[in-house]
Every structure is written in structure tokens, then in C-alpha cells.
């Protein structure tokens, strides 16, 4: 950091304390979280990070206390009068500890499911990250993801040409698999469905996207959907850095693109946080006013088609034991829990639940953007991801399906690190391998074994 950017220790303290005091003016829910905690420790028992290493630093109560104790000291009467007796204490100025701890919470919200008061520590974590971001202290990896995404509208910095090349390849691949032309339409104005996947589902592990293309083909809706060569990555790391301005700026081009394409549906892919932002945060009309499209998820859509009996599958194409990992943003934050199961049960011979699941599922250990941070690889492998590995092992599954690029990346690293014998992929990936087109499933080249 150069001299002019260096903020003095005193200035940092002042800024942090002021930001914490401002919580008194809202949001109301955060203010309640500051006042309500009974310190019962229920959240600690349910936290994947604390489970991985039960120490003070990993305890969600104490992490949240970084903010809470200062809030009490400066704003509540009890805190001012009773001081430490009421859990009040002043901010110690240690920003390194601050950043480390708030970037060791995966924001999975499992604590909120079990807390008797419903305290959601991820909201406090996001506030902690927002305060760090304002001081320019967001970890470099996260900063660079946000910057790349704001500049290129995708978190990988991929060009429209790279995108189109990947799409061409997928069309060739489907031609080989089925002997017919199955289109992936790009930049088609007037298409009803505008498909927004995470970019990983096009550029790296693209079978989810071929799955979607095949569903539209079978339904005779090849011309009713499109992708955009400018907007093909729903990922939005503004959610993770706590910076609302960045989050909205990242979201806007997608809304504009849906409007300019004239689509009726923003058709979100297998990316939990992208869907959560579009559906739960943006759609209510708060950010951009009334919108001429609805936000739907591809898994909801496909599950509806399966239940209506419009798709047929050859399950023998997926004979191995398959389990589903509920991404926290889908399972806990958006209620998308049954749809992926409908798809997997229809397309796989041996679907097994892992326990607990759905809204109570354990985080993969890479949530909240941590999966992108290689500098905390050991922490993710040994601490935050520990419970997940145990859970998967108990199922005996050879394939973990999950609808989130962040989770997939964490899983891939866990598999490698722990020398585990299972694969990870998407939900529509399984569908792509089993769906019957003209009476036959794909003649697929086995790239796996």
C-alpha cells in the first residue's frame, strides 16, 4: 500500500466504530441481532467451521461479537452502564484479525436455522466484510473477482469469442452424442427464456448447459430460449464482499440484457447465490422498479416438465450411487429443495439422500465466496470442509450432484486433497446423460474414468 492510501490506525478505529454505531439506525434486523443473542452456543454446535475446529476463533458467537460488543459499548444503555458485564467492549483496532475471521465464515446461514432467536450470523459477517471493504481491506482474490466481473460481466474475464467457441464445442458434442443438431441459441431477440448460468457451466464443466439445451429440444422449444454472449455468468461477488453498490452494478447489465432481448423469463442456471440475488433481493422491485420478466430457476422448470410426464430417461446411463448436496443458497435461502431431487430420481438408478439435508444441510465449506480463495485452501480442506466429507462418505455415493459452481470447486479440491473416491458435477449433467431423444439416450464418450 502506498503512503497516500495508508489510513492511520486511529482513523481506522474511528471509521469502524462509526460504522458499527450506524447499525442503530438500521437495518432493523441487524440491530436486533446485536441486542438479542443469549450466548447459548447453539449456533456453534451447528456451524461447519466450529465443527471442523472447535476453538474460540471459530465460534460464530465470538466472531459476531467483534461487532456486537462495540455496538453495545457505544449504543445500548446496558452496554454503556455495565460494560463487560453486558458483553460490551471496545474495538481493539486489529483489522487483520477482523478480515481473517469474517472471511472464515462461509455465510451458510445454518446457525440461523437452529438459533432459538433466529439470529443469522451471515448478516453480521456481511456487515463485517462491508466495513473491511470500505477501508480497502477486502482480500485481493475477492477484489479481483469483483473487478473482473464489473469490467467484463463475467467473473472469469472471458470474451464473447471464448464464450461462442465453448458453445460451438457443446453443439458439436451433442451432435456426436445424439446424431442430430441440438441448438444452443445465442443473442436471439424475442426468445422467451434468457438462460443465465454460472460461467463455469459453459467454460469448464459444461454438461449442465447441454442438459438444458436437450430439455428445450425435447419440448420442441429450441427457438424459445437464448443465451447472451455478453451476459453469461450470474455470479455476483458483491454479495460476498458486502458491497451493495458493487452487487447492484454487477446485476444491472443482466437486467438490461433481459429487457433488451425482450425475454419473459430470466432463466437462472445452477448457481445458488446468483438465483438468490435475482429472486430474493432484486425481483421485489426495489432495485430497478417493475420488471417485464419473471425470475425462474432451471431446476424448477425441468422438474415441472418431468412431473408433467414430458421427458423420458434411460436411467441405466447413470448406474452409480448419486447423492445431492443442497447448496446453502438454494436450500436454506431460496427453498429450491425438491426440484433437484425430482430430476436426480428421474435420471439416476441409485439416488441416496445425505443426512441432514435440505434446509438443514451442512455447507460444503467453501460458501460465501471462500471457495475462490486459494490462500485459505488448508482451512477449507481441514476445517470448514471436514463435516461435508464425513457426510458424503456415509452415503457411499460415487457422484455428488450439486447446483453451485462454488460448491463444485470446493468439492473438487476436497476430493483431491483427501484422496476421496467420488466425482462431483451438476444436476442437469445427470439429465444430459440420461435424457431420451428420439427414443435414445446419448452415446456418450466416457471422459470420467
Amino acid at each position, binding site marked *: 500500500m502506498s503512503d497516500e492510501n495508508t489510513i492511520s490506525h486511529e482513523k481506522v478505529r474511528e471509521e469502524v466504530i462509526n460504522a458499527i454505531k450506524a447499525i442503530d439506525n438500521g437495518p432493523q434486523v441487524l440491530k436486533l441481532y446485536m441486542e438479542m443473542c443469549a450466548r447459548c452456543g447453539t449456533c456453534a454446535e451447528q456451524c461447519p467451521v466450529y465443527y471442523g475446529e472447535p476453538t474460540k476463533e471459530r465460534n460464530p458467537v465470538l466472531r459476531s461479537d467483534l461487532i456486537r460488543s462495540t455496538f453495545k459499548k457505544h449504543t445500548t444503555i446496558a452496554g454503556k452502564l455495565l460494560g463487560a458485564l453486558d458483553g460490551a467492549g471496545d474495538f481493539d483496532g486489529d483489522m487483520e484479525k477482523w478480515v481473517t475471521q469474517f472471511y472464515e465464515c462461509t455465510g451458510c446461514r445454518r446457525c440461523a436455522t437452529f438459533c432459538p432467536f433466529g439470529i443469522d450470523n451471515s448478516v453480521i459477517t456481511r456487515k463485517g466484510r462491508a466495513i473491511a471493504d470500505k477501508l480497502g481491506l477486502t482480500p*485481493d*482474490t475477492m477484489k*479481483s*473477482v469483483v473487478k*473482473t*466481473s464489473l469490467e467484463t460481466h*463475467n*467473473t*472469469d*474475464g*472471458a*470474451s464473447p*469469442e*471464448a464464450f461462442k*467457441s*465453448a458453445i460451438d*464445442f*457443446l453443439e458439436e*458434442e451433442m451432435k456426436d452424442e445424439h446424431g442430430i443438431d441440438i441448438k444452443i441459441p445465442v443473442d436471439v431477440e424475442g426468445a422467451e427464456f434468457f438462460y443465465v448460468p*454460472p*460461467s*463455469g457451466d*459453459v*467454460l*469448464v*464443466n*459444461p*454438461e449442465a448447459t447441454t442438459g438444458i439445451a436437450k430439455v428445450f429440444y425435447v419440448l420442441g422449444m429450441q427457438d424459445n430460449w437464448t443465451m447472451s454472449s455478453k451476459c453469461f*455468468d450470474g*455470479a455476483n*461477488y458483491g454479495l460476498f464482499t458486502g458491497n451493495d453498490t458493487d452487487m447492484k452494478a454487477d446485476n444491472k447489465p443482466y437486467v438490461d440484457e433481459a429487457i433488451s432481448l425482450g425475454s419473459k423469463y430470466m432463466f437462472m442456471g445452477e448457481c445458488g447465490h446468483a438465483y438468490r440475488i435475482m429472486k430474493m433481493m432484486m425481483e421485489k422491485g426495489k432495485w430497478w422498479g417493475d420488471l417485464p420478466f419473471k425470475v425462474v430457476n432451471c431446476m424448477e422448470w425441468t422438474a415441472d416438465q418431468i412431473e408433467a410426464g414430458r421427458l423420458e430417461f434411460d436411467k441405466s446411463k447413470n448406474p452409480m450411487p448419486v447423492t445431492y448436496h443442497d447448496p446453502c443458497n438454494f436450500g436454506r435461502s431460496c427453498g429450491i429443495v425438491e426440484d433437484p431431487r425430482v430430476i436426480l430420481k428421474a435420471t439416476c438408478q441409485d439416488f441416496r439422500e445425505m443426512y441432514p439435508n435440505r434446509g438443514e444441510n451442512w455447507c460444503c465449506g467453501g460458501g460465501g465466496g471462500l*471457495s*475462490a480463495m*486459494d*490462500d485459505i485452501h488448508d482451512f477449507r480442506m481441514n476445517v470448514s470442509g471436514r463435516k461435508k466429507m464425513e457426510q458424503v462418505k456415509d452415503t457411499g455415493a460415487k457422484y455428488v450432484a450439486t447446483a*453451485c*459452481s*462454488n460448491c*463444485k*470447486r470446493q468439492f*473438487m*479440491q476436497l476430493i*483431491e486433497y483427501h484422496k476421496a473416491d467420488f466425482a462431483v458435477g451438476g444436476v442437469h449433467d445427470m439429465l444430459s446423460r440420461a435424457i431420451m431423444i428420439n427414443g435414445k439416450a446419448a452415446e456418450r*464418450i*466416457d*471422459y*470420467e*474414468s
Partner: protein
Amino acid sequence: MDTADNQNNQETIDGYVKEMSNWSRELAKELAARNDIGPLTDDHWKVIEHIKEYYQDYHQGPPILKLCRDTGFTRKYICELFPCGYVRGAFRLAGLPRPAGCI
């Protein structure tokens, strides 16, 4: 972050090649050693060359399935060649810049 990364010599930044023009076989070998990959075999080089070529055309690495198809290697074998991952391992050795997001 390891100390070698912090040195940020002229060719690399945060463990990734700074610019494609800095890339050399020697540098790839050095990055391999730093990341517990290798020793580099003909198969490693085949993957690296494919990625480099694709990157020259599209400024992006190829989807893993495309690489499998072009090289005849399975996904599993590629992961064995590059234990720290396709993107973080193979792309890195081919001189591609540090990837940003979830991939």
C-alpha cells in the same frame, strides 16, 4: 501464500505468469515444482500446449471436455496430472492469468 509467491519475480505474480510473453518451458517447470506437480511428462506438455494454443485464439482456456476430446485423456487422468486442479494447475502452467471466480 508461500514465500516464492511473495517474491513476485518479474515473470510471475501471485504464483501465476504475469504475461503470456513471459512464458517459457523453464518457467512452467518452476511453477510445477512450486505447486507439487510433476515431474512434467510428455502428457503434461500435451495438455499445456493444447491450452496455450486455445488461449491464443480465445483468451480463455478450453472447457475440460474439449481438452479431453482433443487429447484423448479422461477427466480423471487430467486431474491426476494436475492435482491442484484443471484451472488452478493446468491453466497456470500454460501461462494463463490467475482465474477470478468459482472455476
